[in-house]
């Protein structure tokens, strides 16, 4: 089928996924034993207060109507109001989202810029110094927890040497260290992947044809093989981005960044149900969107999928 139809189908699937997730979220919250209104009100609250909270939450209405109400609000992107701060959940999320977005994008860019060249080089010059360096980096990167790395970076570059600010989120400078901590962890995985993908491509038959055509080694490796090796790397990078967009909670904690992660963490501690609900929903939507975009990108890069 042609490209447009394919994309429309994917879009349809995306919407279906989102609807399914919102249904699951709805039922999960209500399946948890205990009355959320009681939990919020506290153990020794008065009955009217509990009833009032229940009315506010909407848990006194019949299930079907609650479900309908929920689905409608999801469609409108209205997740209710935060119980704690009284602000619309949607607004809270979007306020924090821009920070998380920038952080995530920076993180993945650092990861790609580091991992891809090193991974490709590793594959092209196997068993050389670069290869060992890349493998070592990859091993360490996967072993080291990102929050530990974050703390170390803080100690070294923000405390010992006042190169970067300790906390807060005023400028881009504030985001460098957290982005690096995030990025390095992802880079380790991407490096492994790009190395493997490149090695696999270099062993394929079309590479022989390329050499038989008298193309320079550079063209053979970096034009012909690399193009095909990029595909799996891009896919995984996209997934990683989606994950980071959900809020790299621990990193945000370490660097005291007012991002989505902290927002949700606080919400969970405080039992701010509308916030939690809205947060999970948001992350799910974002992730689905990312996957959709990666699919799109993949189609652009891989002609076999794009056309027939």
């Amino acid at each position, binding site marked *: 089928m042609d490209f447009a139809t394919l994309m429309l189908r994917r879009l349809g699937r995306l919407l279906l996924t989102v609807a399914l997730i919102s249904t699951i979220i709805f039922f999960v919250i209500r399946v948890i034993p205990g009355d959320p209104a009681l939990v919020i009100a506290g153990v020794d609250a008065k009955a009217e207060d509990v009833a009032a909270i229940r009315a506010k939450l909407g848990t006194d209405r019949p299930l079907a109507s609650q479900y309908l109400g929920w689905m409608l609000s999801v469609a409108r992107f209205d997740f209710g109001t935060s119980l704690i701060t009284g602000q619309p959940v949607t607004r809270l999320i979007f306020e924090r989202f821009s920070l998380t977005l920038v952080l995530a994008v920076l993180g993945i860019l650092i990861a790609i810029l580091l991992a891809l060249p090193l991974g490709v080089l590793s594959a*092209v010059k*196997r068993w050389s110094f670069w290869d060992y360096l890349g493998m070592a980096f990859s091993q360490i990167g996967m072993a080291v927890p990102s929050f530990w790395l974050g703390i170390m970076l803080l100690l070294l570059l923000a405390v010992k040497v006042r190169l970067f600010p300790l906390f807060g989120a005023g400028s881009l400078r504030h985001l460098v260290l957290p982005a690096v901590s995030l990025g390095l962890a992802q880079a380790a995985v991407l490096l492994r992947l790009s190395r493997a993908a490149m*090695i*696999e491509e*270099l*062993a*394929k*038959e*079309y*590479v*022989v*044809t*390329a*050499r*038989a*055509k*008298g*193309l*320079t*080694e550079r*063209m*053979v490796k970096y034009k*012909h093989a690399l*193009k*095909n090796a990029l595909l799996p790397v891009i896919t995984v990078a996209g997934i990683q981005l989606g994950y980071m967009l959900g809020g790299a909670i621990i990193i945000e904690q370490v660097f005291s960044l007012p991002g989505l992660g902290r927002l949700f963490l606080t919400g969970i501690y405080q039992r701010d149900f509308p916030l939690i609900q809205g947060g999970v929903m948001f992350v799910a939507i974002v992730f689905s969107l990312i996957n959709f975009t990666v699919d799109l990108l993949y189609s652009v*890069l*891989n*002609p*076999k999928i794009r*056309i*027939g």
Partner: protein
Amino acid sequence: MAEAEGGRLLEVRDLEVSFAQTTRSGPLGPRSGPLGPRRGPLGPRRGPLGPRRGTPALRGVDLELAGAEIRGLVGESGSGKTVTSTCIMGLLASPPGRIERGRIIFKGRDLLCLPAQEMRMLRGREIAMIFQEPSRYLNPSFKIGEQITEMLRLHLGMRRAEALHRAEELVEWVGLGGRRRVLHSYPHQLSGGMKQRAMIAMAISCNPSLLIADEPTTALDVTLQLQILKLILRLREALRMGILFISHDLGLVRAVADQVSVIYAGRIVESAPKQLLFNHPLHPYTRLLLLSIPAAARRGTRLRAIPGRVPDAEHIPPGCAFHPRCPLAEEVCRTQAPETLEREPAHSAACHLADKRWPD
């Protein structure tokens, strides 16, 4: 720009190649390792003289090809035909493979003495190659047009528009109707036969003098096979190209080739003009091979099957490699490797007993 006819376009003399490991290693390198030409931009591409290491893949191959001539190279799997073509192209992966000795003289120059850079410039430009499975040998991520024009721009310095125009001509010449569409297509959008034609268009784009065709029709349906063969004949007629046609199918070779060489266990055992080879084969292997082929004309008779099988590179019998399977074998065959002698004009065979009468 083919060589004047009658002139020797290609001459391979006494080519010996060995491999360090044989498991999971094809002539183009280990299955998961790097492929490619010999490492190092400069320097001879022949190994230093010394004790032979590893298993022998080619044990002294001699081949000749004149311009505007088709030479068939016939052999079963493991006989060394692909290794031979790989060496001619200069694509032998150097870590496992090693050229122990020999010369490959193309238009008067020994390719094994050329620096890697010069060899690379010859590839595609003067010597081109087409392969067996076009779906694997074409890059799936580039359009056909791009894969053709990149050669034209690299080797002939053409500009984009000029190259595209020439690509259109090429694509039409090889019989791919609807040229625009083909140029803008990706390999997976074309059928098997079309892909093979596209690969041929790519290979001949710079008008090479020599084309190596390695089993170009094996992966194709029978009726497509015919069309590709016709195309190859056209290459010889119209473009005066010298073609090395590698195949295990004697029927195809008989239909297409002018001269034929038969390779067995890394050596050429017989070499002759087509008629002579098929009508008066001298080497027992050739003779038995011809007798073992099923054909309508043989209905009702038993095929003369060759007992045993082609030896592995690690276990090549001493003396004549074919002797364990040969009905004529004598003591000398077990101990001494036969020399290649010219028995009739242009007809040579490597057999001690080429004149011996057959028992039947």
